[in-house]
């Protein structure tokens, strides 16, 4: 049943992306906010999947790479639904959907090929739950910052080429993209800091590798933010490092 929910969520995101792509090519303008209900449907199925996996393991469902990818996707969708409209970033959903779709596709392939099955239940520890939830929500914010970075590069290229296409007119201004990217980095860093602080109160001390990796991700983002606020990084390197840092964070997740 959990696989079915995951497949349904993945199909919802694929459908959202296809719908957006088709409407962008259409002669009629796309309906504003059509991605939001689709993302919400996907989120419901993601949540059902994670709930079933959580019940199966008797703990937060981040016991293997597939679950971590779904959890990160879930966080990205939550961040998109919570902040997308406030940041006035049209098409954020269009760029987010394919990323979430591919993450979940990997998760499906992983689970179908070699689902490691239930882990022995861990003793209930609210600090552990807080650590996991905050850290993964932070990854959601970092993921969305990466999406804003990709959107910046796209829009910058359109402007530099002198041949703006149809998508250009639907995209947000680059100044708004950069502002949203910085805010998402800060939100992510704050959430990750809370997650890391929570880890110090956990009953079971995390292993050394886990600590090193989490610390490395935290430091990468902290350095990026501090450097930006001190030296005011230009948009291009800022966007590049937001994408690179998220790629690094994803790689470290696979190591966890």
């Amino acid at each position, binding site marked *: 049943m959990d696989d079915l929910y995951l497949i349904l969520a993945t199909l919802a995101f694929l459908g959202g992306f296809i719908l957006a792509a088709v409407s962008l090519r259409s*002669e*009629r*303008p796309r309906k504003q906010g059509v991605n939001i209900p689709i993302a919400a449907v996907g989120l419901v199925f993601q949540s059902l999947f994670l709930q079933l996996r959580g019940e199966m393991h008797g703990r937060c469902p981040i016991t293997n790479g597939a679950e971590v990818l779904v959890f990160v996707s879930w966080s990205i969708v939550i961040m998109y639904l919570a902040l997308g409209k406030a940041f006035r970033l049209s098409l954020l959903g269009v760029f987010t959907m394919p990323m979430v779709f591919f993450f979940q596709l990997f998760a499906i392939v992983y689970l179908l090929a070699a689902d490691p099955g239930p882990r022995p239940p861990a003793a209930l520890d609210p600090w552990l739950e807080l650590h996991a939830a905050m850290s993964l929500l932070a990854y959601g914010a970092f993921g969305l910052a990466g999406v804003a970075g990709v959107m910046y590069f796209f*829009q910058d290229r359109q*402007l*530099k080429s*002198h*041949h*703006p296409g*149809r998508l*250009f*007119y639907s*995209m*947000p*201004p*680059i*100044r*708004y993209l*950069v502002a949203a990217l910085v805010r998402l980095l800060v939100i992510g860093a704050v959430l990750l800091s809370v997650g890391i602080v929570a880890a110090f109160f956990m009953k079971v001390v995390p292993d050394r590798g886990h600590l090193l990796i989490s610390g490395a991700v935290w430091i990468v983002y902290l350095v990026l933010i501090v450097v930006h606020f001190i030296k*005011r*990084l*230009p*948009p*291009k390197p*800022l966007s590049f490092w937001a994408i690179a840092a998220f790629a690094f964070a994803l790689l470290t997740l696979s190591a966890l």
Partner: protein
Amino acid sequence: MSIFCLGVNHKTAPVEIRERLAFAEKSVPQHLSEICGMDEISEAVVLSTCNRVEIYGGSETPAAALDKLVEYLIGHFAVEPGEVEFYRHEADAAAQHLFEVASGLDSMVLGETEIFGQVKKAYAMAQTTGTTSRRMNKLFQQSFTVGKLVRTSTRIQQGSTSIGSAAVDLAEKIFGQLDGCRVMIIGAGEMSRTTAQSLLSRGAKSIIVSNRSYDKAEELALELKGRAVRFDDWENCLDDVDIIISSTSAPHAVVKHEMIHRVMSGRRGHSLFLIDIAVPRDIEDEVNEIDNVYLYNIDQLQQIASEGKARREKQIAVCRGVIDEFLREKGIEALAGLPDGRGGSGPDPILTETAARPLTNP
């Protein structure tokens, strides 16, 4: 009882004819009263703008009413019989024409929005004068609905159609809202003035004008409510601006790569938009290679405007589809079913209701 439309526009008559037929705003109520005083005409609305003069009305005998109107126009305006070819529309063709006018499909700049306000104003004036009844009320209310529907459900407004609007659209894609954007003009030519005015109309602030002749710079600065700087000094102002419009008559590049490169290092990530409308060009092409700097020359802006126009022209069929659908669903047939408000016994509920309500957002 049917509706009709008689008129000329920028496609059918040159400005020399249109200016003679134009109704002075103050005289419109009197003309409306005279037109409605004709036996053949029961309702009338006059739409007179710089690109069109049109009279919409209701009549039992629309063909006779149209002939009478032509006579009236020839009699009251300085045009000779046979000098003007008026277009005449009746029934659904008249409604369709008004819907296309209100949607901006009949405008010189396709999809422009000014005409929508002008149609609203023309209708409000006729309503105040008391020359509208059921048919005109319903027809014009529907035209407002269609005008909005066409603009929201098609891409007729998307894309730039002139160099000025292309510059503004690009600036908005870089900076977002232009409130607080600082503009510098190098070379006080006509194109600079027009482009700067387009940017100012969207909220750009603090215009700096520099020109070889300081008097001309001062003159333009005064007109644009900005400040003039001497031509030797404009480089010192580069740090303080977001948009530069250059149109000097210099035979060589005025804005150099090294200059902008140096300026950008101190701008702390803020973008710079350069518009080069000079021929020969004022700004070195390599400037566009600098990160966060966007340079457009006159050909590139013209190309965007041409593409925008072509894109809007492709949208005409889509817009007409929207209008046809509207007409099929609740258009002219609903109008034809209405009894004559003026000739009917008892009060006209639609007229009474509309007249009692201020025309703010039909």
